[in-house]
Structures are given as C-alpha cells and as structure tokens.
C-alpha cells in the first residue's frame, strides 16, 4: 500500500501540488486525470522520487520513503513511464530493455516486451533511442521498458498520447493484465481507460477534486468537466 500524506510541492514560489492525500491499495487500478498543468506529472514524479515534495510524507508498506532516492525507489519496485520519453545518444532499445530488466536478457525475451506494445521487434532492438524513431514508437518503447521492469507500482504518464488505435486496444489489455499483481496508476484523459479504473482521481490546480468514478463518468458524459486535451 502506498500512501501520500499532506503532500505539497512548490516550484519557483508557485504551489503546484496543494496538500495531496491519497492511498493506493495493492492490485488496484487508478487513473489520474485533470486539465493540463493541473500537476499530474508532478505527482507521478514525486511518487517516483524525481521531485522532492516541499512538505508531506510518502509511506510505502508502512515505511517512510519520502527521502529515498530514485534508484532506491526503483529497487523497491516503483516504475514510471515518462510522459515524454527520453532521447539518448547511442543507447539502443535492446540496451534499455536490458537495463529495465536488471540483467542480460536474450533478444528473444526483449522481443516479447516489444511485441506487447505492438512493435515488430527484431527490427527495433538495435535502433538507437534518438530522433530517428517516431514519437509513437518512442512512447511504446517507453511503455515496454516498464513492462520489462515489471514494477510492483507502475505509473504510466499519458500512455495513449501519440498512439494509434491499434495500439490503444492493446494498451488497455496490458493494463488489465498488469492489475492482477500490481498497483497500476495511469495518467490519462481517455474515457476507455477511465472506465477501467477502480478509482478515478481528478486533479485540478494541484488539488484532488474528487475520487468517485461513477459521478465522474456521468460528468464527462454531461461535459460538465474538463477532459483535458
């Protein structure tokens, strides 16, 4: 179980997250949604340890992990698929998947991760993670790296962005499978993904607005609520 208690996050004197209190239970599927700039990615980065909260604590399975580094959290079982995949000079897809897995894996095994995100695998393994890959390809490789890492708490930041319909179908399946043995947190604007959620968390200007999925979906239907992009 992951708990965020009274989390505040300030950047350049601006309050980006304002007193966030959330509990993520094991093997449940959470969707965080909300308008652009509402603090969703910041919240994910705070969970991953990329940002340090200005105040508040993070408790994981009863331990205070607020001061744990990114590496320590990764080793504890946290994983984060970035909203904007990182470009590298020289690092290949194959290397990235090896690092994600934490050990040398066969090309065949690496391929299975790529095929799960709909990439014709062999062709991609030796490609460098640079601009020569399209946005959608990079996004899928980013997701594959988290599938390979297989974390206990997996966070995906707008995984649907830049992904065509195929892939969307597939993506929802990946999430469904994942929930069986882990906590999955997906930042998304997609109704289909929202519908799969055990719990929907709406962020607005850095505060949690509402966590009742049914109400939220009705609101979306009635267009009362911002869907983001």
């Amino acid at each position, binding site marked *: 179980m992951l708990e965020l208690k009274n989390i505040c996050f300030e950047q350049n004197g601006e309050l980006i997250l304002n007193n966030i209190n959330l509990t993520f239970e094991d093997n449940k599927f959470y969707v965080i949604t909300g308008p652009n700039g509402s603090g969703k990615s910041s919240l994910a980065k705070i969970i*991953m340890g*990329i940002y340090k909260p200005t105040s508040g604590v993070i408790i994981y399975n009863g331990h205070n992990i607020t001061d744990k*580094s*990114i*590496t320590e*959290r*990764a*080793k504890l079982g*946290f*994983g*984060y698929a*970035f909203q904007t995949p*990182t*470009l*590298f*000079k*020289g*690092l*290949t897809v194959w*290397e*990235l998947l090896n*690092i*994600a897995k*934490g050990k040398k894996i066969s090309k065949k095994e690496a391929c299975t991760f790529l095929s799960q995100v709909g990439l014709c695998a062999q062709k991609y393994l030796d490609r460098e993670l640079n601009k020569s890959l399209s946005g959608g390809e990079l996004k899928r490789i980013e997701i594959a*790296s988290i599938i390979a*890492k297989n974390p206990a708490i997996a966070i995906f930041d707008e995984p649907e962005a830049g992904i065509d319909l195929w892939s969307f179908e597939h993506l929802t399946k990946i999430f469904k499978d994942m929930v069986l043995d882990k906590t999955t947190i997906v930042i998304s604007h997609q109704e289909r993904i929202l519908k799969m959620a055990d719990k929907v968390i709406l962020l607005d200007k850095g505060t949690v607005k509402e966590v009742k999925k049914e109400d939220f979906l009705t609101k979306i239907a009635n267009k009362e609520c911002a869907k983001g992009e």
Partner: protein
Amino acid sequence: MNETDKELLEKISEQTKEPISAYNIRKNGTCIDRKVSDYINIAAKEHGLEIYVKENTLFGIIHIPVIITQSGIKDIVYNDFHIGKNANVIIVAGCGIHNDDKHETSHSGIHRFFIAEGAKVKYIEKHYGEGSGNGKKILNPVTEIKMQKNSKMTINSVQIKGVDDTKRVTKATLYDGATLTINEKILTNNNQKAKSEFEIILDGLDASTHIVSRSVAIDKSYQEFASKVIGKTKCYGHVECDAIIKDEGMVRSIPEVFAQDTSANLIHEAAIGKIAGEELLKLMSLGLTEKEAEKVIIEEFLK
C-alpha cells in the same frame, strides 16, 4: 613477440570476417614481421612503406599495426597507400604504446591515400596507451587522401584510453561522386589533450562527406575539434560534432564551412554539454545508481 606485444596488438586490432591478406608489424621503429599477397604488395622505403593494392582486388584485408614498448622512442613513419581501380579493401592501422618509464614516447604516422576510380576503402585506426611510467605517450597521425571518381572511403578512428597528447590531421580532396565518411571517437581523461583537424575539399560533382565526431572529456582533459569543409561545386558535406564534458573537461569546436558554389550544400552541427539530466533520470528510474547510469551513457555514446 612477448606477452605485452601481443596484448598491445590485441588492443589496436579489429576482427574481420575475411582472413588477413597482407600485414606489416612495426615494433619500436622497425618491421618485425611482414606478409604480402598476389594482390597486395607492401614494400619498404626509407622511413615507411609503399602499399600497392591491385585493380579489382576483392576482400583485401591489410593490417599495419605499430607498437612501441621502449620508453623514449620518437617514431615517425611515412606510409603511402595506392589503391587500384575498383579494389575493395579494409585497412586496419593503429598504434599502441606501452610506456613503463619516464621518457616521452611518440609515434607519428603520416599516411597518404591515393584511391583510384571506383575503389572502396575502409580504414580503421585505433589508438591506445598504457604503462606504469609517467613518460608521456603521444600520437600525431596525419592522413592525406585523394579520392578519384566514385571512390568511397570510410574512416573509423578510435582513441579510448591512455594517450596523453594527440594531434590528428586529416586532409582530403574528393572528385566526382566520391564519398568520404569519417567516424571519430575520442575519450580523454586526467590532463590529456586531443586535437583533431579536418580539411575536406569537395572538388567534384556530387562529391560528399559525412563526418561524425563523438567525444568525451573527463577530469581536466581538453579537446579541440576543428573542421573545414570546402564545397567547390554541387556537393554535400555534413559535419556533426557531439561532445560530453564532465568534471573540468573542456571541448572546443571550431567549425568552418566554405561554400564556393550556390549548389554546394554544407552543414555543421555541434553540441557540447554535460550528460543530459533526463538520460540519468530515466536510467536511475530503472534502478541504476547515478554512477552506473553515467557509465552506461558514456559507453553507449562512444560505442
């Protein structure tokens, strides 16, 4: 040849699919072994070699390594390569210095290439230094290239370790349809210095060159990359200098592109900076420590 010699040779050699057709091994300023073939002749001249590759030679593999194990030697060698029409060869050169003493030890390989029409050359050059002494290890290669119609040359040069001071000069003139590709990789640390100078003249219709330099400067090391590409006619030149600096490392890139014809298309790109924070964060979020992430990023960058 003793164990040190063998290890040095190992460091600067390169496995090829085809067997070696001809070679010349130079140690401490003299030839210690040589082999020639029906197609490839290696003849000694004063202070160097004349290497002749016959027309239409296929899969010619030539190794001409230089090793220096005696501290204080200042070796200069002049090698001329005459590559016949439509020949296809791989040349593996390079120099390894093992310096266990306090004397400055250096090697300068002055290489001239005369590449005939339609010939294809891949030139691999590795530089390496080691040894317990504090005597400097210095390498100053000079490469001059003339490329006739539709010939192709690829140069892969690598200097990964242990060379204190190096100045590399590469000059080439390309005629119609000739293509020159250069991939250069350099890592310097401690107080090492490395300079690399290119002057490429595109003097023929559709001649093209593509130069990629990737370098890493660590500690207090210093690197300089000066490239000059001159386009005299319809041609294409692309220079890419990409460097990572760490600690107090410094890299200076001096680009010059000189278009002398409206249809010359010349590009120079340079990017110098520390390891991108984003790259570190991504690898750390996959479980690497910052140090491990840095190591992977540098290794892959230079691979």
